[in-house]
């Protein structure tokens, strides 16, 4: 015969996602099946599961917002930039031609739909310019497209001639960061890291000098490592380790 798995009140509380006080009260009131031994309550796991099912009570702790630890490994701007690569002398003299040439160069996984991607990028620019000022634009699709991406990728493209992009500060754009992410949360995290880099004076200077991969990526790595050292994981929004019983 299979041996019954015994639980203490604390384990039942976490199984049912209720406070310990509630479990003890239920036991005392006889609402939940339990045994009394030496003034201590103990519970049989199968009985508790059956009881919860028959009373339509959910089992397990309350669901947490999202498994954040998994995405944390993936969210790394330097790696994304490494995957997206850096391109020089992107031709074009208006938003459409620039984007069209950019999409043509993008390292997309086989099966990625270039036509769809271009449409989405143009569509996004029509809603609001991604020119975030100081000659930088960050074209990206509105939704994560079915590009069969496993990881986010960011491609830095220097324009051969600075182009009018309807940027917030009105300045022509000389550098594009084309951002493709598998999910929206990942996109937001990559974006927040990119914004952090752009605030860094040395990084902007490298960008301004049209520096190559060998200079840009180490700089990004440096900024990202500083981020984790200085602020700890807390400074990265959405990486809090706080308990979330009631989101």
């Amino acid at each position, binding site marked *: 015969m299979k041996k019954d798995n015994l639980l203490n009140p604390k384990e039942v509380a976490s199984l049912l996602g*209720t406070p310990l006080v509630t479990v003890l009260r*239920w036991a*005392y*009131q*006889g*609402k939940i099946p339990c045994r009394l031994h030496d003034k201590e309550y103990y519970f049989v796991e199968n009985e508790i599961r059956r009881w919860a099912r028959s*009373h339509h009570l959910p089992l397990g702790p309350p669901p947490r917002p999202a498994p954040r630890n998994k995405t944390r490994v993936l969210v790394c701007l330097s790696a994304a930039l490494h995957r997206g690569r850096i391109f020089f002398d992107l031709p074009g003299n208006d938003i459409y031609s620039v984007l069209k040439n950019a999409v043509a160069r993008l390292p997309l996984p086989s099966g990625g739909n270039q036509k769809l991607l271009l449409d989405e990028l143009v569509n996004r620019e029509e809603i609001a310019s991604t020119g975030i000022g100081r000659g930088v634009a960050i074209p990206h699709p509105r939704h994560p497209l079915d590009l069969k991406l496993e990881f986010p990728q960011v491609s830095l493209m220097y324009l051969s001639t600075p182009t009018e992009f309807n940027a917030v500060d009105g300045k022509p754009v000389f550098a594009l960061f084309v951002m493709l992410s598998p999910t929206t949360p990942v996109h937001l995290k990559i974006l927040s890291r990119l914004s952090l880099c752009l605030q860094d004076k040395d990084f902007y200077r490298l960008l301004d000098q049209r520096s190559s991969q060998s200079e840009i990526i180490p700089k990004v790595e440096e900024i990202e490592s500083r981020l984790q050292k200085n602020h700890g994981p807390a400074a990265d929004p959405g990486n*809090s380790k*706080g308990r979330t019983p009631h*989101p």
Partner: protein
Amino acid sequence: MSLPKSGRRFRNILINMDSRLQMIIIGILVGLCSGLAAVGLNLGLETFSRLTERLTQPGLIILLPVTGLILTVLVLKYLIRDFGGHGVPEVIHSVSTRGGALKLRSSFSRLLGSLLTIASGGSAGPEAPVVISGAAIGSNISTYFKSNEKIRVAVTGSGAAAAIAAIFNAPVTGFIFTMEVILGEWAPGSMLPVAISSVTGTIVSRLLKGNQIPFVHRQFEVNINDILATIGLAVALAAFSLVFIRLLKWSGELLSRYLNAALLRALAGGALVGILTLFLPHVRGEGYRLVRQLISGQYSATLLTVLVLILAKMLATSLTLGSGGSGGIFAPALVMGSLGGLLYFQVLTLMLPRVSFTGAALFSLAGMAGMLSGTLQAPLTGIFLIVEITGGYDAILPLLLVSFLCTTLVRLVDEHSIYFYDLARKGQLLRPRTDGRILSELKAAELLETGLKPVHPEMPLKALVPLIIQSQRNYFPVLRKKDRHFLGMLYFNDIKQYLFDPFFLNSLIVEEVMQTDMPRVSINESVRRILQIFDHTGAWSLPVVEDGRFLGLISRATILDHYRKELKAQTEA
């Protein structure tokens, strides 16, 4: 030495037994004890009443109830330290809020009290005292066997059922009374011990007193006229019930308003009951002899006498119970009902001399059922009691009609029955599966949200930004830095307008934007009260503060979450 040892072993075996088996065994035990208590009171009353009825001098007739009531008050209030009254609300209260816990002394105090009150000529019934005794016996037996509250509630109800079953020799009535009045729900889980106790109590009563039917009647041939006539009877009885309920409430209030000392009240009440008895001897005691005469057709009186007798009985009962006597309204209601039936029959034959009716006895039976249903608002108890104590099923049609009609009519005027009235007034009427009951089970400590990030009043807004980013919640308790004394709450909503302005970000401090005037609740506050505060203030969350220490937060969302779980846990699968 071997007896206590085996007793302890029996107890341990019972404690670890399957709960259903445990309930059966405890149910039998409770039925035995409770049945014995009921039969004991019954025999004691018969013996003492026979003695006191021989005393017929007018002075003694007045003096007897005075002595009886004073003795009752002395014994109950000063010797045993329990309360007077009929005690059924106490059982209902215990079953609905205290998991069926009752004092051990309640198992005999009312027996003694009602013996003194009724044997000395006070007008009251022995049923409510045996109900509370039986319930207290059940409660204490199940506490001894460490039963959980669910079992204890069922067993407490079983004690009451056995008591009613034993005193009337009526097992079904015992069962139905417990389900309808005491427990207030027909839960399959508690029916088993209640039924077993009812059966055991009845067996005890039959073994000791014989299988006698209290009120034997002749067979009826109920015709359509009778059935139609019962509709009018129901109206009359509903009116009587309402008058009786009011008299009961007022007598207690009036007596305690004008007479402060409990003994003085007993003196006055006893004297008044004595004077009533002097003129109308039928009001004394529980009055079963009168009922017996009525339904066997041996009693006859003029219309006016019957009406006066009904009112006198109401008054005498109200005075007896209002002045501290111990006893119930079961028996008086039966007396009034049977008299009311007779009165109605007399009026009917006077007005419709050509129509044939079965007889006064049938109307007396229907009257008893109607009056009981009306005053207790328990129609099923009324019907089955009459069917069982008269040993006849032939009157079931008028009984059914009059009981439900009367209950409904009384309920039109009075929302709560006489048993629930006091509880409802104190907000303690918590019937199973009602909102109030679920809220009463939840405790503030279970709803507490902890793990909030505290802030200090001197913190600049800028220092809050990382906290806001980290926190899953939109509120922060503000604690004094040196002793962590709770000062107020900081709500994200209040500060978000400043967060994006570098000027405010650097210049504002927490103290300037926190809220300090929100209500705080104590950890011991009832959830019902907390919800009222939510409703009054429109707040979404309230800080729980004890002696200046911040314990956590209670929010509406958490209450909903726990409320639903509690509701699900309470529902029998």
